[in-house]
């Protein structure tokens, strides 16, 4: 098991590609997405039942080591300043497969 940060982001679906680009540029090795979710926050109610990506959220999380996280955090902060959304950071343990123990 490896200690890692779990970075969860909830943003308007329309901005998800831009966030994934940010992840890519930060050398993130993996992520998980749950699309078309709902929510309420400072930008109002997202109901996810519209013919429109502006009214629906996506939920993305990525796991990474503390160092990588420290490098990303400012970029995520300015992303959220510009596009809205929430970012939640928590401490987790990740169970690695044999192969991955080498990768990460």
């Amino acid at each position: 098991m490896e200690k890692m940060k779990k970075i969860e982001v909830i943003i308007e679906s329309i901005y998800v590609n831009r966030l994934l680009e940010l992840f890519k540029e930060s050398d993130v090795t993996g992520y998980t997405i749950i699309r078309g979710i709902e929510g309420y926050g400072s930008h109002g109610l997202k109901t996810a039942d519209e013919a429109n990506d502006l009214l629906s959220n996506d939920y993305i999380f990525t796991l990474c080591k503390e160092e990588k996280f420290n490098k990303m955090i400012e970029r995520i902060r300015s992303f959220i300043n510009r596009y809205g959304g929430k970012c939640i950071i928590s401490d987790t343990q990740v169970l690695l497969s044999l192969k991955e123990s080498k990768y990460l």
Partner: protein
Amino acid sequence: MNIDLILQNILNPPILFFLLGMLAVFFKSELTIPQPLPKLFSLYLLIAIGLHGGYELSHSGINTYIFTALFLAILMAIIVPIYSYFILRIKLDSYNAIAIAATYGSISAVTFITGVTYLQTIGVEYGGYMVAGMALMESPAIVVGLVFAALFSKDSADKDNSQDKKKTDWKEIFREAFLNPSVFLLVGALIIGIVTGQKGWDSMEPLFGTLFKGMLAFFLLDMGLIAAKRIYELKKVGLFLIIFAIAMPIFNASVGILLGYFFELTKGDTLLLALLSGSASYIAVPAAMRLSVPEANPGLYLPLSLAVTFPFNISLGIPLYYYFITILWG
């Protein structure tokens, strides 16, 4: 104005299903049409409109008259967002003025086909090439919006010091304008309709022709739910914009009608041109604006387009514009 014109429009199942959807929200019934069912309906409608338009074009071919009609369509799609922007600047900042102007400069496909249904109900002819006109009218407003964003809101680019970001945006926004799913699918189906002609249409008609009105009714039920939910947001929008959302379509449609009159379009084609000019986008353009002008408030342009202009156009707008036309044509 003849009340009959309005009733002929409203007493059609599709419009009544739209009202039913709105009532469901007002009465707090828990009726919902969850994703991706609305997506299914809109994919269906785009394909159906495109195929049928292409099929009709494969018969008619292109002539000067059609060329004129398409030219007028593009003309309206360019000038509407321009003059809308300057009207909106009276009360709004640059960002919001751009986003709303682009929204109203583009079109709503469902408004268009509701107009087509109306023409069929009252037995007035129109040309299938107007579908091509509709396709041509989707993108210009997005381009105008982007040019204005570059001209009038440079400051924002400075604040955000990630210059390379700005460059990629242009490519992304170009895609939004000309390759967004609505335009892409509509144009694609149109071309398939043209290429496969009579034989192609014969094989596609049972699904994409015969069922069309039923699917439209189903989709408008959902649009009623969506529009009504947005009505609650209008209180934050302000009177100026609510008036704008009704007056602007009437004005744009009137310009379209005058152009149609002077360039001698048929009554049916003119109604469709007017309706396209008067309608506002609620999918493609809001998406493009959200990406390119994140500073603009979608809480303004979305409810205006969905909860005011769309319901107005499909219920009262269509017969009103047709009434104008009957007066002019005499």
